[in-house]
């Protein structure tokens, strides 16, 4: 295997809150190969977004990051200076945010915002940057791209803005794009368009994509690898095919039962639910965090679950046959 574009090893994020320290992300490790799509899956509050912010070093002030290795193309970001990180951010690694309505600066035109990073990172002139911006706007399916450059964000719809965010992320020709639920704020028809667009661009440009989502339907269509997160931990990690055909962790199995599948779900059959809620992450968690909701829970689950591996497939469960 060639050197992965992104390696994350033992990433933990603690957030100080009034009620104590919230362990938002605990001991998360994964890697993304060049041109690969990794989907981070999990329910709200499981640490997906915090993980992505931690990779980009964008955590809020109250959060502290501990990581044994955070390497982008072999360069350890955790041990690099702010200048070196800034030279990579927006240039070789880019991020697409959840809320296109607030992620664009209302005080500048689309053109200004698209070209700014390109001109800074590539030391390009205004005309060249403009040409690239028009090219990318056309690529993300925006008609009359030249005219759009002079418009302000408030003149555009949510779907258009998210397309512009994608174009902005692609401006410098990044090797890695992290998309944090890029379609959550959009309506359903637009969601499908945007995801298809992302997947197409990813294939065409050979970008590694980390897609954060809680939509398993999306994952099934575009992911190469899947990491399932629960309560701040990666509970299962493997290729999309393995995760979908042989989910090993009870939480992943529960998630799979929640989505209707043609052929597997019979008409009139009830979809699965996972009872209960995510445990509070304030203070330490002993044993398996899923045991209160797990249908297979045994007394032994109060112990820290071991990580089991089978080829590239890894999961965190003490039970043999769950």
């Amino acid at each position, binding site marked *: 295997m060639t050197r992965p574009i992104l390696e994350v090893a033992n990433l933990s994020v603690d957030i100080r809150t009034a009620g104590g320290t919230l362990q938002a992300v605990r001991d998360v490790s994964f890697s993304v190969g060049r041109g690969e799509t990794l989907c981070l899956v999990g329910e709200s509050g499981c640490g997906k977004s915090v993980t992505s912010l931690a990779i980009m070093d964008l955590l809020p002030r109250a959060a502290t990051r501990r990581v044994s290795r955070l390497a982008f193309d072999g360069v350890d970001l955790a041990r690099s200076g702010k200048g070196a990180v800034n030279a990579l951010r927006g240039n070789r690694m880019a991020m697409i*945010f959840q809320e296109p309505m607030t*992620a664009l*600066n209302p*005080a500048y035109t689309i053109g200004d915002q698209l070209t700014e990073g390109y001109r800074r990172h590539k030391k390009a002139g205004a005309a060249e940057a403009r040409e690239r911006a028009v090219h990318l706007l056309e690529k993300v399916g925006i008609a009359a791209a030249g005219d759009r450059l002079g418009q302000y964000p408030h003149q555009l719809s949510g779907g258009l803005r998210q397309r512009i965010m994608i174009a902005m992320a692609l401006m410098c020709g990044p090797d890695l794009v992290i998309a944090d639920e890029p379609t959550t704020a959009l309506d359903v028809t637009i969601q499908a368009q945007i995801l298809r667009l992302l997947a197409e661009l990813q294939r065409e440009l050979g970008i590694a994509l980390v897609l954060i989502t809680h939509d398993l339907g999306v994952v099934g269509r575009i992911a190469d690898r899947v990491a399932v997160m629960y309560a701040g931990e990666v509970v299962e990690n493997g290729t999309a095919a393995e995760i979908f055909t042989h989910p090993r962790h009870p939480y992943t199995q529960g998630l799979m039962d929640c989505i209707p599948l043609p052929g597997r779900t019979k008409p009139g059959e009830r979809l699965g639910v996972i009872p209960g809620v995510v445990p509070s992450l304030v203070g330490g968690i002993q044993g398996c965090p899923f045991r209160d909701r797990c249908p297979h829970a045994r007394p032994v689950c109060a112990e820290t679950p071991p990580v089991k591996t089978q080829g590239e497939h890894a999961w965190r469960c003490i039970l043999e046959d769950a």
Partner: protein
Amino acid sequence: MTGTAFPPATSAPSSAAAVAELSAGARLRRRMFGQKSFVFGVGLLLVIVAVALLAPVLAPHDPYAQNLSQRMVPPFWYAKGGWEHLLGTDNLGRDYLSRLLYGARISLLIGLSVMVISGLIGTTLGLLAGYFGGKADLIVTFLITTRLAMPVILVALAVVAMVGGSLPVVILVLGLLKWDRFAVVMRSATQQARALDYVTAAEAAGASTPRIILGEILPNVFPQLIVVATLEAASAILLEAALSFLGLGVQPPLPSWGLMISEAKTYMFFSFWLIAIPGTLLALLVLSINLAGDGLRDVVAPEGRG
């Protein structure tokens, strides 16, 4: 252009297209001239500024020349008034119109310089406190409360007692004292802007901290800054008038409007115009600045663009 309340349905798309096709300049003009109060405020302010700049040309007499045989001549609309001194003369026989014209320069100079000095101090402190938070915020908040605990007039009195009153002293004292509102407003506006995604997005795009503060946050808190700046300019002009009235500000024979009001108060019941004319002008100047600032905020607000 859509003057009618209910345009025919068929014409609606074409009129919408016409709005979109307007050039940026045309849209800016439309936004500016669409507000009557803004046009009035800016117009009045421009007249006052022009008159102040052209004072040496416009003034019919030397504002400092005394003529004791021509004391307290009333303005031309009184029976005893004449065309020699349009607005009459003061208690030393100085031409009142000329003094008012030169006085406008002092009021505007004070308003502008105090606004710039206090604006620079307050905006810097507010942006730093709002962006960095933590210790920086604590320090700036402490400075603001310390400053708020000091009454401006009292401090000005003490300073003038130490170094003597003069125009530069008034400007410095007011400039160094009046930054508190800039700091308060900029701090909270920055805190709000900082929490928005586009700031994080700029960080994710590799922008440096100074670039984020000046390039991303400042343009978005600019509307608030303009409102505070105009309010502070108007309030500085009033404070100067108050200080001059108390004898702590601009020293005679410089013709400041506040000083003229102060000099005229002795004759308030005999020569009413002496106090009414500078008082009215002061009120008009402050009104025009406030109206202009209020309208300017709407003109520069991002939502109003395009």
